[in-house]
């Protein structure tokens, strides 16, 4: 079959940087985000949220709020709990993991500042907010467990009494032989690294418009999300509805990055209210409550040790990761996956055999933490790359040479990491060599020395990384979560001759629909403009997982390719009957079914016309089938790993501690590149997201568990003024797990940038005998490292 596919030829859209057809609509402000949708009799909901990190609800008086203008319902946790069953955010394959049942609104005890407690539905959001101020809650403040380091100490406040302590999950990976390797090492380096909490700050806040139709017992939920079928299964099961009577519609989504892939109490409560009130209820988080309730991410303390021999060969790596995840593990993906990923990924690019890793996940009275873009990757990469650079410095080796010596050779695949990750085929050396050429690394090094003499302190950082993409059922499904790893595509040839491709993967701006149209047009031999792509509607697309963990191109794209091949076969069968030849002699080129090597044939429009209107012209014993569905799942590997390398040039001001990123480079190998421009933009956006967490973004709590920065004036996202230009190049190692050969590219930028940046900063600081080990790298951090404060 693959002989049919020509991705290199002039007719292929695959491999070309075509523009996104849906971009123009967005550029004219004609997108449709949830808040843009207005339904008849629609109400707006706002929430009273816990002002305390940990407090018992003694009483709730809603009477004054109920009498406020425009108010239609004030619902407490108990009211919502009558409609919505609780949920538990554990995955069974993460052995020993635990988390208690969670309700949409706090029942007796609120466990983080910002946890929703009372919902008010009113004619307008302003009126709902007015009434929230009139809800009177008597609180008994409880001691809060905030510091992850102390969460397991004897005497610590236990957040869930039934568990006896605050442990959520613990895992140890040990290859054995670690202590022996350290004992015999020429160089041992160790450090404790910390990574601050940050959050996604999707520009479109989380949004849910729930429209319950009592007569049908059906619920239509317009959701700003990235996994419609997952939401369908969860809403149905928690709200007691038939799954097929729950429809999730995700139209335009204003950024997600993993933020909108979880179940949030406020969104569930909006759905419950719609059922209670038998009318549409809209919830759109405002920015303040986004900071208090959108999942946070990272927040790790990692102790790391690395052993190397005299030549610089890494002998062993040991890490101990501690992370605090808030009072509940998020449902349904859990809050333990990030730590699990840190254990699995750290040091993954390198060929050492000895590895020991301990991961500890604890509960705390802060906003829940869970999967956010590049889950675990930035931590794993920054830790390993920091240790590699430390070892290189200790042995007086150039960081690039240190990596050359230790990266898994490109001809050593398939192989397995010490943590058990299976690699099909990676290209670390090819990526690194291309990166150093792209950066003109020797010239940068020479320039660095010259500038240092002039008092300009620049640093060069490298980071080699692996990236989890194309997850198989081993990611979630095996753990009992109803999140599809397979995905489907239903493709049809319409009566007009247009190709309609409906897919379970979703578009959040990455270019999913474009990528799918490119594959469909290429496989079918039609113009891309003839292809229409449908996404984000459980009533209209095949059952699938949505877009996360860089699965849309690799998994969704392969389903499209397979559907396209099947539809093409069916079309050629029809063509063969009409042209009175055998299908094997036919092909589709430029929208026409032709005899191979000739232009003789008929257009798809004409073929469709005959099928749909003039079936009488076809043989009586032949039934054309111009709608096909194909599915795809990754079978051979738990994940299809990709890899790449990033470089960073940064300048520090040793007087002020300010860091300026001057330039970033990335060479990424995501297998077959369907649209180079879209991949590059994923990398660039991802890098800036990674730089944000590494430089400025930080959710800061005070000693009472109050989040101090709940506005965009105080939580510093990266803006255009400070961000560098980023050069991106590709290495292509198509995966053999699919015909398409595509792997993901969504996490690579975010995963690698914090490590590359920290290495660049430390490269600059090395002139002062200083180094930083915590992110974000603020002036406080740099000046403290320099001993200047």
């Amino acid at each position, binding site marked *: 079959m693959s002989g049919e596919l020509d991705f290199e030829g002039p007719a292929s859209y695959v491999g070309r940087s075509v523009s996104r057809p849906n971009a123009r609509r967005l550029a004219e402000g004609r997108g449709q985000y949830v808040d843009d949708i207005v339904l008849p009799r629609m109400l707006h909901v706002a929430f009273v949220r816990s002002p305390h990190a940990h407090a018992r609800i003694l009483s709730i008086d809603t009477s004054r709020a109920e009498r406020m203008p425009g108010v239609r319902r004030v619902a407490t946790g108990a009211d919502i709990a009558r409609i919505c069953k609780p949920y538990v955010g554990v995955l069974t394959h993460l052995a020993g993991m635990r988390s208690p049942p969670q309700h949409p609104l706090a029942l007796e005890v609120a466990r983080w500042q910002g946890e929703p407690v009372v919902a008010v539905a009113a004619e*307008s*959001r*302003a009126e709902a*907010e*007015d009434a929230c*101020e009139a809800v009177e809650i008597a609180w008994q403040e409880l001691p809060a467990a905030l510091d992850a380091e102390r969460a397991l100490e004897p005497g610590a406040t236990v957040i869930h009494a039934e568990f006896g302590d605050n442990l959520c999950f613990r895992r140890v990976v040990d290859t054995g032989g670690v202590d022996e390797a350290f004992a015999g090492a020429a160089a041992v380096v160790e450090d404790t690294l910390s990574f601050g909490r940050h959050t996604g700050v999707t520009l479109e806040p989380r949004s849910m418009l729930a429209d319950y139709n009592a007569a049908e017992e059906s619920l239509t939920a317009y959701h700003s999300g990235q996994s419609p079928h997952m939401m369908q299964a969860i809403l149905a099961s928690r709200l007691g509805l038939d799954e097929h009577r729950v429809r999730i519609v995700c139209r335009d989504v204003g950024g997600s990055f993993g933020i909108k892939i979880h179940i949030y109490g406020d969104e569930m409560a909006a759905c419950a209210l719609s059922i209670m009130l038998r009318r549409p209820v809209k919830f759109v988080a*405002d*920015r*303040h409550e986004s900071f208090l309730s959108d999942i946070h991410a990272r927040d790790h303390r990692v102790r790391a040790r690395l052993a190397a021999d005299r030549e610089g060969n890494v002998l062993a790596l040991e890490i101990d990761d501690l992370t605090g995840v808030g009072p509940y593990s998020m449902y349904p993906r859990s809050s333990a996956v990030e730590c699990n990923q840190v254990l699995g990924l750290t040091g993954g690019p390198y060929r050492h055999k000895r590895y020991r890793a301990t991961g500890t996940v604890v509960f705390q009275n802060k906003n829940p933490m869970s999967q956010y873009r590049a889950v675990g990757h930035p931590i794993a990469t920054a830790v390993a790359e920091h240790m590699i650079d430390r070892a290189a410095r200790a042995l007086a080796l150039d960081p690039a040479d240190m990596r050359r010596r230790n990266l898994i050779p490109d001809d050593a695949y398939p192989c397995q990491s010490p943590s058990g990750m299976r690699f099909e085929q990676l290209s670390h050396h090819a990526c690194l060599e291309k990166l150093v050429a792209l950066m003109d690394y020797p010239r940068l090094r020479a320039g660095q020395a010259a500038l240092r003499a002039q008092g300009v302190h620049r640093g060069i950082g490298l980071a080699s990384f692996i990236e989890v993409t194309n997850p198989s059922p081993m990611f979630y499904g095996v753990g009992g979560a109803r999140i599809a790893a397979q995905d489907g595509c239903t493709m049809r040839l319409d009566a007009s001759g247009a190709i309609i491709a409906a897919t379970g993967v979703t578009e959040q701006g990455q270019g999913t629909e474009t990528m799918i149209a490119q594959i469909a047009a290429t496989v079918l031999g039609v113009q891309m403009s003839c292809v229409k792509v449908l996404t984000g509607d459980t009533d209209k697309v095949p059952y699938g997982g949505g877009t996360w963990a860089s699965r849309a191109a690799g998994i969704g794209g392969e389903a499209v390719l397979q559907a396209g091949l099947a539809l093409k076969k069916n079309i050629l069968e029809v063509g063969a009957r009409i042209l009175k030849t055998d299908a094997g002699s036919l092909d589709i080129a430029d929208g026409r079914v032709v005899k191979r090597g000739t232009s003789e044939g008929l257009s798809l429009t004409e073929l469709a016309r005959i099928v749909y209107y003039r079936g009488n012209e076809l043989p009586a014993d032949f039934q054309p089938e111009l709608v096909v569905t194909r599915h795809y799942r990754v079978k051979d590997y738990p994940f299809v790993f990709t890899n790449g390398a990033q470089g960073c040039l940064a300048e520090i001001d040793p*007087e*002020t*501690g*300010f860091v300026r990123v001057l330039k970033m480079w990335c060479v990424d190998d995501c297998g077959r590149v369907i649209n180079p421009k879209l991949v590059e933009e994923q990398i660039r956006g991802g890098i800036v997201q990674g730089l944000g967490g590494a430089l*400025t973004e930080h959710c*800061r709590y005070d000693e009472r568990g109050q989040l*101090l*920065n709940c*506005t965009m*004036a*105080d939580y*510093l996202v*990266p*803006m255009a*003024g*400070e961000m560098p230009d980023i050069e991106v190049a590709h290495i292509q190692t198509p995966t053999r797990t699919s015909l398409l050969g595509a792997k993901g590219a969504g996490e690579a930028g975010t995963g690698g940038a914090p490590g590359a940046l920290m290495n660049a900063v430390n490269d600059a600081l090395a002139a002062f005998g200083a180094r930083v080990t915590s992110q974000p790298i*603020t*002036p*406080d951090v740099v*000046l403290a490292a320099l001993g*200047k*404060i």
Partner: protein
Amino acid sequence: MKAPRFAYARPATLEGALALLAAHGEEARVLAGGQSLVAMLNLRVAAPRVLVDINRVPGLGEVALGESCVRIGALARHAELERSELVARHLPLLARAVRHIAHPAIRNRGTFGGSCALADPAAELPACALALGAKLVLRGARGERRVAAGEFFRGLYETALEAGELLVAAEFPLPGPASASAFGELARRHGDYALVGLAAYAQRDGPALRDVRLAFFGVADRPVLAARAAAVLEGRRVDEATLARAVAALDLEPRGDLHASAATRRRLAGVLLERVVKELAQ
């Protein structure tokens, strides 16, 4: 995040505005550019009963050259100060500082008077007013009074404005031919409130500086003059040794917050002093 209910009035005259302020007293707030106030309303950290919108009061937006001063009307927008030739010629410090305020869309609406009346301790313009010895012109039912910038800024979001009074203008003394000014601030991102900023003014006397005024912002509950450091510089040639002594004489006691510790702020203030004063002396 919707503003609480309030009533809105838009007087067409200064007298009308003062009458409204007198009538509503503490329950009223003046709406000028709104670039801070409306955000505070949306966040429900401000909840006045009445907003008195002064945007259509005539005459409040003028920037005019008087005999001995430049008068900047309270409603002069930041973008107007940025473009004003008068400001560029006579108050280059202000012209420079205003470009650091937020972003173009904010500067199109935000006003000089609003910035001063809000008295955010990290704001640029109050520090400039302090450095340049401006007087704030306040109008109330009982007439007009002038308050020196050093007296006007009293604390965190606190000024000498009394209930019923309106800030109508500021008068900046015309600097002499030997006067110099320099400005610097350190912010993590372009347009953010600075971690530390410095608006500096002096008279050049050959290689020496006189009448040195170093107005720091972001280091206290209001813009503050670093008098001891200025005294070190007074009448001296600016060299490394003098600068080091001036830095050592800085007696600021900034507080730490989300964005920088007290120690970092103290250090940054010293760095800024060196950099800005060097420029001042050039």
